[in-house]
């Protein structure tokens, strides 16, 4: 979709939201719609202010697969991937190294007091055992 189409579609959605606002009796629904309108206004700002060619591509999003996933890491090598100064953020669990650079739960490369660049096997197992979390993370390699 080009920029103009995207803007037009967003404007249509904004219009539909405004119509909905007139007909919703409940505060909670109205707040939800207002919140959605706020999001759409930000969308318009984005469409208007960013050069389409500069928009980051799928490669930057959390689910993108890394180019290679066979790298071997020592503990020291892993510690360099701490998410600081533009470096990627990696963590090791059960011998596998995962990329959490753009994982939403890892704001500023930290997560519930833990930092990227470490082997977090014990912490993972005590909090997330049995949860389908690792399957969704891109793998970058293995610990030696």
């Amino acid at each position, binding site marked *: 979709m080009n920029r103009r189409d995207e803007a037009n579609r967003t404007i249509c959605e904004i219009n539909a939201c405004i119509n909905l606002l007139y007909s919703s009796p409940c505060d909670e629904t109205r707040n939800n719609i207002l919140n959605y309108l706020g*999001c759409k206004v930000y969308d318009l700002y984005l469409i208007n202010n*960013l050069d389409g060619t500069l928009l980051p591509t799928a490669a930057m999003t959390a689910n993108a697969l890394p180019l290679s996933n066979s790298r071997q890491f020592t503990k020291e090598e892993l510690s360099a991937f701490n998410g600081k100064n533009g470096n990627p953020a990696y963590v090791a669990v059960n011998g596998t190294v995962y990329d959490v650079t753009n994982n*939403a739960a890892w*704001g500023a490369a*930290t997560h519930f007091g833990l930092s990227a660049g470490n082997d977090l096997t014990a912490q993972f197992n005590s909090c997330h055992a049995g949860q389908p979390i690792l399957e969704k993370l891109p793998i970058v390699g293995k610990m030696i």
Partner: protein
Amino acid sequence: MATANNGYYNIIGSMDGKPLTALAAVKFLGARASHVIAVGACAVHGGVSAAKPNPAGCVSVASVLQRKVIQLPGCPCHPDWFTGTLAHLLLYGDPELDRRNRPVMFYSQTIHDRCERRSFFDKGIFAKKLGDGACMFKLGCRGPITPIDCPIRKWNGHVNWPVGSSTPCIGCAQFGFPDQMEPFISYDVSKAEE
């Protein structure tokens, strides 16, 4: 709940001429009440009172009572979350709770789910400093791990909320706040400008 030194770090009044500790009051009233609601981070999981090094030995209300406690984490707890829960109890009985005993009517969706800057996150456009109009994920935003309704409820009479004034969510309504939500802000994540 301060537990060190038999709770004497937190005296809330006197009873029968003796000082009454919060610990004793909660144990006494908690055993007899029809419902117990823990309001705010300190009551729910220790919060700021239990932050390291926790000299007063603070713990959650639930850990000193052997019963169900409705949990309203938040620092502070929004008045709506408390009055809404209380009104629900009075009018309709027990509200639906999640697995950590938080009312789902307030705590079911994360901040990140309804954040107005979400499209910036999805496109990978991140703020490098406070005041930048983009997603504050790289500054350490805790919105993605904090389930609460701030984006639609807002604060101070529904006027604004942290992301609306360009400051990242610090996860005050998540268990473990403040210690586990630190650092609240990081300026060393994005690549330094050449």
